[in-house]
């Protein structure tokens, strides 16, 4: 890597901020920290970072407002750092344009994996994405609309295929129930996401050896689904 990637860390808790900085510095990122929302917005506008790590609980500003403001001028990936219990908050952040979230407390490897995924997706946004998803024994050819598992072709219904390909194209990223519902069943789809859950269950029966221990599609309780990425 010729040039260092820049990460902005928006977090008012000094200890957490310091430890994220040291992780990122170890992976040779350039880090800039901000402890308030106003500071964060000016830093983001002036430094054009490659990635933003955002803690939602800031003293001066609602985290959602920061996401909204940032999204008004840049598509820089945002990873939200949130507490375990606030599913609603996570979902709202994702729906407002955050790219991913990570739950406190998290480990080094988890944080780096999320950052790499987000960076990869943001670099894809300009050009076309891969035409094939391949992970473990699962191969999806988006052009031919073919799915095979361990070399054997899998037959999915149209909706099931749409769901799987959508998750696969954004593998590693969590897609919310709401997002999937809107993408597949349209903007006026029912609030009730049972139909989505049922379809996912059918997909799981076709793709996974043991639905209780899935290898490819993971559930984030209360938020949505995430496809494995390698």
């Amino acid at each position, binding site marked *: 890597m010729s040039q260092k990637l820049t990460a902005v860390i928006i977090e008012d808790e000094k200890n957490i901020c310091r430890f994220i900085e040291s992780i990122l510095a170890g992976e040779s990122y350039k880090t800039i920290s901000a402890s308030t929302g106003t500071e964060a917005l000016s830093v983001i506008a002036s430094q054009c970072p490659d990635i933003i790590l955002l803690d939602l609980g800031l003293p001066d500003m609602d985290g959602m407002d920061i996401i909204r403001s940032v999204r008004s001028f840049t598509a820089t990936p945002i990873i939200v750092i949130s507490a375990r*219990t606030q599913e609603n908050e996570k979902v709202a952040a994702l729906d407002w344009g955050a790219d991913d979230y990570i739950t406190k*407390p998290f480990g080094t490897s988890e944080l780096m994996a999320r950052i790499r995924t987000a960076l990869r997706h943001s670099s894809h946004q300009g050009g076309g994405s891969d035409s094939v998803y391949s992970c473990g024994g699962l191969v999806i050819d988006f052009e031919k609309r073919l799915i095979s598992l361990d070399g054997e072709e899998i037959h999915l219904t*149209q909706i099931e295929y749409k769901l799987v390909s959508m998750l696969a194209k954004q593998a590693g990223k969590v897609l919310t129930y709401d997002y999937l519902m809107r993408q597949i069943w349209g903007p006026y789809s029912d609030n009730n996401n049972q*139909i989505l859950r049922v*379809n996912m269950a059918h997909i*799981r029966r076709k793709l996974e050896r043991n639905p209780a221990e899935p290898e490819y599609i*993971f559930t984030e*309780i209360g938020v949505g689904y995430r496809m494995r990425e390698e």
Partner: protein
Amino acid sequence: MKRAVLLHNIKITLFLLTAATLLSSVFFLLSHNSANVAILYVLATMLVAQNTVGYVPGIAAAFLSVIFINFVFTYPYLELNFTLDGYPVTFLGMVIIASLTSTLTTHLKEQTQILKEREHMLIEAEKEKMRANLLRAISHDLRTPLTGIIGSAESYLEQESALSGDAKAKLVENISVDAQWLLHMVENLLSVTRINDQTACVKTTLEPLEEVVSSALQRFRKRLPDAVVHARIPDQLLMIPMDATLIEQVLINLLENAVYHSGSQMPVDLQVSVEENQACFHIRDYGTGLDPEAMDSLFDGYASTRNHCSDSHKGMGIGLSICKTIINAHHGQIFAKNHPNGAEFTFILPLGELMYESETDSSDH
């Protein structure tokens, strides 16, 4: 306060007597029979006694009724006359009946009130006891890992130069392990806040069983990567009404229990079966089994901290009591027993009406 009660009593008494008078007048004008009149007034008196506070209104109503009947409904009309043949007896009887009913009703009401209060106090006391137990367990369970963290950190800071590299690594590892344990504890406690205080119930939605199980296993593996769990669930899609976050917590607690307390490295079985409109979750370990003496108080929260293992760093502590709280809030059951090769925890969730996913296949080939 007293004035309000007095006002209330007067209002009720006057209203009921007026109602009785009106009704009686109608009856009297239609049938000219004063027998029904007396009965209507007795009824009114009873109602007065029932709906007012104290003995006075009932008795007063009884006297007023008697005087009123005499004044309005007996000859000579609109005059008081107690000298007619037999009337004194009637009136005396009526006063006594009315007073007695009124006293009885009032008394009964007081009794019920006392009973209700006593019951309420009992429930409160029970709640208080549970809260105290939980607090005791919490403070114990939180203090243990905190002591470890503070101790390790301080000895590192104070003797940094004297410690060997190995010893330092050990101290930091201790801190990490204790912090993980603390986190687990706090997550358990937080989960309880999702349960409604008043009704002790949770908001449930239909969740696919496999998603909850897989999510719990995922989180469990993150914490204990070396533990092996064999999960087996029914083949058909099962939707269970629950709060998924809470049930996930229960599964993780029970799995960790099985790993920490079985005293064996054997894989743990997690099996879900459907029986009579219920989903039964079995978590089975192959180790030393449960101490029969501790069986009764297993889910009380502080049992394990009180006896034997004083280093109950990995004591069951509040984990199991929180499991019970969560399962109760789902109207389910949780229990433990020993099987020949170890211990088995089972919890049961009712499936409700919408149990099986009928093949609402949304396919559009």
